[in-house]
């Protein structure tokens, strides 16, 4: 995007300028890391780690310095810390996975302006592809769920995972086109409702395709799903021994997979970011923006609406297809529950919270929502329940913790928190936490002059033919 960059630095960025800035960021990152080694289970320390990543993004230094810092953190420091608490790798995996999904959705919603409420469907397609071919489901297609025995071997060897990573991309892109065709003529609310229905259809299909041919094993889901083989060098006892010494605890195959999936998710995320940035700044990206701004003018300038919209659906979907395959392997289990409407909404919340159309914002949005989902609220709940076990009383109120009703468990209020978060955002910062350049200008700069004749002509509504 060639919108002139704001040359002003925010107060935070001014603080991080020059050599002192380098040291400040380094100190925060090192402090967070040290804190993690000291107390690997502390939530504030995890938040501090994420904050240090954010600082690296915001620091006004040259690109390669930021890349060095960021790469060092993501590829060396975090995995090292992961030795002390494997949950860190799980958290990193989930954040990277959802950030990739959010980037894919951002292409559809943020770039092309097509509101898609069924985005999780593409994730499901990728996940079920590997779930079906990477498990023994292929041998059970004529058996009802829950009746079969587990075999010793699988129809496809585990390394086919790598091939299915590509198959997932293609399969999801194809599904994206499939969804795209019927909704090409629709706009706004109508589009949202149809895509919402599409997402549900895929989930319901996953639920019901256990008969007449058992493809998905119904609500019980498919398990076990194979994980790709890890090179024998890493699984050798000596190597595990060494890792164990570093960590001060025994390190097993499961931990190795934790690292593997973390690195894979980060790699796919980086690729997704890279592609999204390049696409945004190309002929196709401009065509998407043009369609979002005014599809009649865009088509009159020679932008083929159908092809451009389908490209948005297909490319957006392909990111989540790859992530679906990875997710299925990571969990070794998929069931329709994973792909409910609330997940679609969560991803949309990430996009809107972070900043519609802004890649950095969307990644941050994914980090915040995922942290809330699987870390912050859970941790608070855990702490609350441990307080409830004890005999203490709530300060000021004098009520014993034990008599606090379980209905007040923070984890139950996940949706409420998202809702509140969104409302607060829409009031104070509608363009998102890290807005895209375009949105920032759009929402915070008044047009110099209202076009005079804008109201002269009645609203030009194109024929339906236009989009067929």
């Amino acid at each position, binding site marked *: 995007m*060639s*919108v*002139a960059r704001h040359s002003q630095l925010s107060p935070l960025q001014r603080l991080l300028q020059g050599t002192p800035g380098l040291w400040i960021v380094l100190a925060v990152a090192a402090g967070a890391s040290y804190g993690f080694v000291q107390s690997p289970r502390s939530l504030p320390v995890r938040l501090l780690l994420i904050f240090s990543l954010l600082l690296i993004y915001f620091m006004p230094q040259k690109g390669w310095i930021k890349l060095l810092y960021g790469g060092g953190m993501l590829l060396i420091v975090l995995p090292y810390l992961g030795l002390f608490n494997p949950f860190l790798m799980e958290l990193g995996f989930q954040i990277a996975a959802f950030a990739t999904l959010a980037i894919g959705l951002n292409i559809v919603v943020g770039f092309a302006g097509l509101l898609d409420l069924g985005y999780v469907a593409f994730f499901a397609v990728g996940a079920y592809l590997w779930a079906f071919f990477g498990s023994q489901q292929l041998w059970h297609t004529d058996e009802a769920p829950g009746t079969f025995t587990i075999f010793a071997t699988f129809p496809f060897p585990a390394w086919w995972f790598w091939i299915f990573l590509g198959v997932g991309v293609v399969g999801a892109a194809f599904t994206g086109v499939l969804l795209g065709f019927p909704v090409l003529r629709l706009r706004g609310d109508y589009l949202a409702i149809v895509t919402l229905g599409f997402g549900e259809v895929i989930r319901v299909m996953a639920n019901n395709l256990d008969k007449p041919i058992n493809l998905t094993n119904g609500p019980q889901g498919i398990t076990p799903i194979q994980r790709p083989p890890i090179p024998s060098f890493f699984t050798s006892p000596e190597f595990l021994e060494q890792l164990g010494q570093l960590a001060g605890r025994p390190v097993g195959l499961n931990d190795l997979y934790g690292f593997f999936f973390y690195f894979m998710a980060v790699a796919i995320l980086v690729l997704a970011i890279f*592609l999204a940035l*390049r*696409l945004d700044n*190309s*002929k*196709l*990206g*401009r*065509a998407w*923006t*043009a369609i979002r*701004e*005014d599809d*009649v*003018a*865009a*088509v*009159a*300038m*020679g*932008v*083929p*609406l159908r092809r451009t919209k389908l*490209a948005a659906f297909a490319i957006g979907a392909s990111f989540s297809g790859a992530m679906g395959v990875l997710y299925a392997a990571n969990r070794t289990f998929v069931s329709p529950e994973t792909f409910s409407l609330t997940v679609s909404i969560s991803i949309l919340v990430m996009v809107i919270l972070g900043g519609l159309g802004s890649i950095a914002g969307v990644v941050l949005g994914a980090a915040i929502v995922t942290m809330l989902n699987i870390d912050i609220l859970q941790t608070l709940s855990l702490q609350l329940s441990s307080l409830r076990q004890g005999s203490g009383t709530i300060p000021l109120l004098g009520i014993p913790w034990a008599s606090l009703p379980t209905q007040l468990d923070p984890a139950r209020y996940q949706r409420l928190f998202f809702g509140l978060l969104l409302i607060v955002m829409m009031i104070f910062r509608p363009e998102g936490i890290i807005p895209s350049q*375009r949105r920032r*200008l*759009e929402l915070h*700069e008044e*047009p*110099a*002059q209202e*076009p*005079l*004749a*804008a*109201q*002269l*002509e009645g609203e*030009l509504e*194109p*024929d339906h*033919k*236009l989009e067929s």
Partner: protein
Amino acid sequence: MRPLLELRNVTKCFGGLVAVNNVDLQIEPGRIASVIGPNGAGKTTIFNTITGIYRPDAGTIRFDGQNIAGKRPDQITAAGMCRTFQNIRLFHNMTVLENVLVGAHTQTPSTLWGAMLRTRSFQRAEEKARQEAIRLLRYVGLPAGLGDQLAKNLPYGQQRRIEIARALAANPKLILLDEPTAGMNPQETEAAIRLFRRLRDELGVTVVLIEHDMKVVMGISEYVTVIDYGQKIAEGTTAEVRKNQRVIEAYLGRSAPSEQGPVGEGS
């Protein structure tokens, strides 16, 4: 000479309203032609039908030797016809340069793979499109250095020029301008008229414009078509049209045309 654009018996209805009624129209290549008529006569609808935004209910439209009735707008643009809008339809939140680059969509050969891999040919195509866009902006008389401004932040007269540059970026043989001088002051109008002439003289683009400002119409049109109630009621040179009884009636019946200034703006 074979007409560049030829409409035969074109009809377009909106429900019971016949907005364009059995219109024949021929535009010779290299002409500057005008379509005039009172408010609501159906001029814009004719443009929309030609450019494929609406599909004609009846009739044929031939452009540059091929039948374009029923084709999609982007196909018609690719065939060499581009337009501006009566109520400026720039992409408000894109920069001026990006607007023109979107106009060059059919002329930029870059592919999806090229964009992802940033191939040499992709970079060359993008750079060429950029240079061409900058050149066009200068050509339509936009002050230098406005390329990075958001389109919506520019004054009205400049937005009209950007719309013309955006249309030119499609490398059209024929350009359709819908009330391109509406809302301009006399100096701007003068400059606009000079620009339209240059489009034809220097770029060889055939120009068709819808105009309410009789000074503009009489000043530059070589051929005038008059529309009233969706029907063509007269055509010919400016002198012929001016004398035509039906034209005088059509205008006097609603809002009298004057040579002093624009008429019939606003609705």
